[in-house]
């Protein structure tokens, strides 16, 4: 049921936010432009088809949440929880993103060209996140799977209580969280990092990065680790 022609321009101020989302959710193909987002929450959420969406301006909370297969570009900043619980597809933010970017994401690629604040990739479950700038504290908290690439610096407690995600940071790490350690960069890691950087259209050499991941000491409760839980 495709009700709207592709290549439409959707004005969030003129239309109801739900009308904009319904149009995007029902489209099966084509490219759409969304104008006047004005920080509105939950724009372009729950898209399930391989359409293209360009949002011109700054978005509010949970933009592009639960995305599957769509390619969404935010030409501006994104509020809390951009691409939260993404399943597949690509979301790109040309500016900065607020906290909890890519939270609980299962798959797909989230690219943030600027900085992102606290708890980036919290509980990530398979999503790939590439950040051009810095990330805030408690990023990749309880991360379970996926890759987080940071071209700038990472804030305090990176990878706290991490399970199996791989973290690559080019700049300084303020501190590592519980059970997160630096790990050896082997050829397989340089190769996957090069691929991620290329897909994110980021100009950086894999040789400049360090890898962090789980020490796997907190998987099961042990009384000796009580202070770390």
């Amino acid at each position: 049921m495709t009700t709207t022609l592709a290549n439409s321009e959707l004005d969030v101020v003129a239309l109801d936010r739900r009308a904009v989302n319904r149009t995007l959710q029902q489209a099966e193909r084509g490219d759409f432009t969304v104008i006047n987002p004005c920080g509105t929450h939950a724009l372009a959420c729950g898209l399930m088809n391989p359409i293209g969406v360009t949002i011109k301006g700054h978005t509010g909370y949970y933009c592009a949440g639960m995305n599957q297969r769509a390619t969404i570009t935010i030409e501006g900043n994104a509020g809390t929880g951009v691409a939260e619980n993404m399943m597949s597809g690509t979301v790109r933010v040309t500016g900065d993103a607020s906290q909890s970017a890519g939270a609980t994401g299962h798959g797909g690629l989230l690219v943030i060209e600027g900085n992102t604040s606290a708890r980036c990739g919290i509980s990530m479950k398979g999503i790939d996140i590439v950040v051009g700038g810095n990330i805030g504290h408690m990023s990749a908290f309880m991360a379970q799977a996926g890759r987080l690439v940071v071209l700038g610096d990472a804030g305090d407690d990176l990878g706290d209580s991490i399970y199996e995600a791989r973290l690559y940071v080019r700049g300084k790490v303020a501190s590592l969280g519980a059970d997160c350690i630096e790990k050896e960069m082997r050829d397989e890691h340089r190769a996957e990092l090069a691929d991620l950087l290329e897909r994110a259209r980021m100009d950086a050499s894999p040789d400049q990065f360090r890898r962090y991941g789980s020490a796997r000491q907190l998987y099961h409760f042990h009384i000796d680790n009580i202070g770390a839980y």
Partner: protein
Amino acid sequence: MCGIVGLYLKTPDLEPELGRLTALMLHEMSSRGPDSAGFAIYGGANGVSKISTLSRTGETNWKHLEHELEHVLGTDVQVETLSDHAIFSTTGDGQTARNWLIENAPDVSVLAVGSSIELFKGVGDPDAVSERLGLAGRTGTHAVAHTRMATESAVTTEGSHPFSTGADTCLVHNGSLSNHNRLREVLRKRGETFQTENDSEVAAGYLAWRMREGDSIDRAIEGALRDFDGFYTFAIGTKEGFAVVRDPIACKPAIIAETDQWVAMSSEFRAIAKLPGVEHAEIWEPEPGRIYSWSHAA
């Protein structure tokens, strides 16, 4: 959840628009705090002290209080009423007037005192509150405002923000403090008075106490970062400008935007989205535990 906004004008061009722009921002934050609202407007300091007050009963005899205050201060006092609010203006000592009202007018709540600040608050839909209290028509140099969704204490006019923290300063808060009961007792012993069970009033009282002891606003906030246990984004209005601080874990949101004409802060960008010239603004999220401030003072 609550919504907070602050708008600070760098040049006089927009001063006639301050109230209208603040009302616009407040409206956008209504969904974050639909149960009550309030605002503090700064401007027009000309050596006159202004005491912002609220009638608890709605039946206060303001003219009678005006005469009584003239007698107490030995100089002219003028009262201007609006809905359940009244502003007393006098060339006499504002603090003396404030203290006298607290002692002698039990049906009156003193909201603020200073040469620049006027403070208003009310229960109900934020748009209705700002309309009833004439926000859109007000002029000035800067403003802070708040929409409340009560979590820690009752929905009352007195529990609404902003809270005064001393002469010409006030505070709006998004978040909740865990140690406000103990802190309130400590501050009571040091001479602070509290009119509600509200946690944000304790934060205001803390800053008032620190500044009375000689701290600058920045030093007082540094103390707050040490002594407050809880979640908060604060916007603090001062005579010359405003300050913004978030707790070190950054549980509560905040965004700041700056142009050549203004600095705006809010819980969310949508409150800033319709300000004039926003397309050229530098926009960033304030870092946790860091104090940001703007001031007209040299």
